[in-house]
């Protein structure tokens, strides 16, 4: 992954920003207008898709009624719990594999094997093992987020500039100091890429996991809405999922700006 060099021109990974600049807001706005118009004139029936204004009203009433915040909290708790397990396991495994040859031999093949299994395909197995409560949902998210964290941190550790490690050794750093001052900070950019992926994956898996007979959460709202053909509620939930994705992205970007302040790209701005 990204190796650290002292090159001042080091390019940083660039992420497309959710920004509507220079007239780029015109077409989305137009789409909204057409959609609204279609709903008002009856061209788009409400049981197919509710109009933007209807969605906005529903959104407001769901917020005021407390229905949305309560279910959002449940979904968030699921995602965070799964992420917490996945993140810890991923970090521990990556450190073990990245910092010792023995660890690599033991762990890496298993992780690569695990990668070949699409996580969502494990859903039936998890239901058999854990039933249909919170456990299979959280486990799914955890299992799905382990890999991006593991892979990026592992390759980040291994990709740390050998010349910097050598310099550190020549200045008498102990093994522990090398890890603390050279290897971990050097692997941090990679780790943050992994974290960004993991957050995205956790939301994706959350959506699917919440289809497993949830009695609360955004997925539960969607399932109910489907049964009552409430397309306005479904759209509200989709918007909530999208906002979660955006918020996660923003979170990582803020972390990066703080943790990677030394990068030339961040220094400039």
């Amino acid at each position: 992954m990204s190796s650290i060099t002292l090159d001042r021109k080091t390019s940083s990974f660039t992420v497309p920003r959710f920004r509507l600049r220079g007239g780029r807001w015109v077409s989305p706005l137009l789409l909204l207008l057409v959609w609204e118009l279609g709903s008002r004139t009856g061209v788009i029936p409400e049981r197919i898709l509710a109009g933007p204004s209807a969605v906005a009203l529903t959104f407001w009433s769901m917020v005021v009624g407390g229905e949305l915040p309560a279910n959002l909290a449940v979904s968030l708790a699921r995602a965070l719990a799964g992420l917490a397990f996945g993140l810890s396991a991923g970090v521990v495994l990556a450190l073990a594999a990245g910092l010792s040859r023995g660890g690599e031999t033991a762990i890496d093949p298993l992780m690569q094997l695990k990668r070949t299994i699409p996580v969502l395909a494990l859903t039936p197995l998890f239901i058999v093992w854990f039933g249909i409560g919170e456990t299979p949902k959280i486990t799914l998210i955890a299992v799905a987020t382990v890999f991006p964290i593991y892979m990026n941190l592992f390759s980040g550790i291994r990709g740390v500039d050998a010349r910097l490690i050598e310099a550190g050794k020549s200045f008498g750093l102990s093994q522990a100091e090398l890890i603390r001052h050279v290897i971990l900070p050097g692997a941090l950019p990679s780790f943050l890429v992994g974290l960004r992926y993991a957050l995205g994956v956790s939301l994706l898996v959350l959506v699917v996991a919440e289809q497993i007979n949830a009695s609360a959460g955004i997925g539960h709202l969607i399932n109910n809405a489907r049964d009552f053909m409430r397309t306005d509620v479904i759209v509200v939930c989709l918007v909530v999922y999208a906002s979660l994705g955006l918020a996660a992205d923003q979170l990582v970007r803020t972390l990066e700006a703080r943790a990677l302040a030394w990068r030339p790209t961040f220094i400039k701005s």
Partner: protein
Amino acid sequence: MASPLARPSNDWRPSTAGPAVQVRNFSRRFGDVTVLHDLDIQIGRGEFVALLGRSGSGKTTLLRTLAGIDPAPLDQVQTPTARAVVFQDARLLPWKKVWRNVALGLRGGDIRARAEAALTEVGLEHRLDVWPATLSGGEAQRVSLARALVRDPGLLLLDEPFAALDALTRLKMHELVLSLWKRHAPAVLLVTHDVDEAVALADRVLVLEDGRIAAEERIDLPRPRATDATFQDIRARLLAKLGVDAGQRRPVEGALLAFPSGEIVA
């Protein structure tokens, strides 16, 4: 303080009389290739030695051995415990502010003050708290020098530290290194491709060829050294040893010269 016995016993300490560096019969192989052949080198305390040699002659290999980066048998290679290296690429940790880079691995109290003092010596007291990525090449190399000197090394190892700098900055760095060397008096081994640099700075110039010391020149000229006749003489002899005909007044293939002759103003 810990008792001296608590220190690792394999740390060789120079006796008060002996040289700083003592290399005896040292060979180094990579697979079938012998890079250093039965090498014998002595560097006195506070002596400034320059090491010349073609690309691939084993200069860096020797330097890495002396720096303790590559292990070597204790009976063949003896160096002071306190050693410090300045690499060609400054190798600053980009995620640590300049003064923290200098303080890297320092033990004991008041580390910041020591780092500050070292950075002041190289004229960078105003750059203590910036990120390394914002430094110019010359500044980065000065930080690297400060990082080496703050350790009070008995042996300072410089691996082509000025090769990436422009001619003007390089001359300033020469002055800086000489003044630091005079003040701290470490033994210095300077690896370089530049004959003029070697002759301008060193007490003694060694030429490494095929893993052996092929030539040695003692330079007893006072510093700063003008490009007088003696200087030119020594320079021509060394160039001849390196396969360059100095009479041609321009570098032949292999371009060992950084300056056309006579341009140096040490």
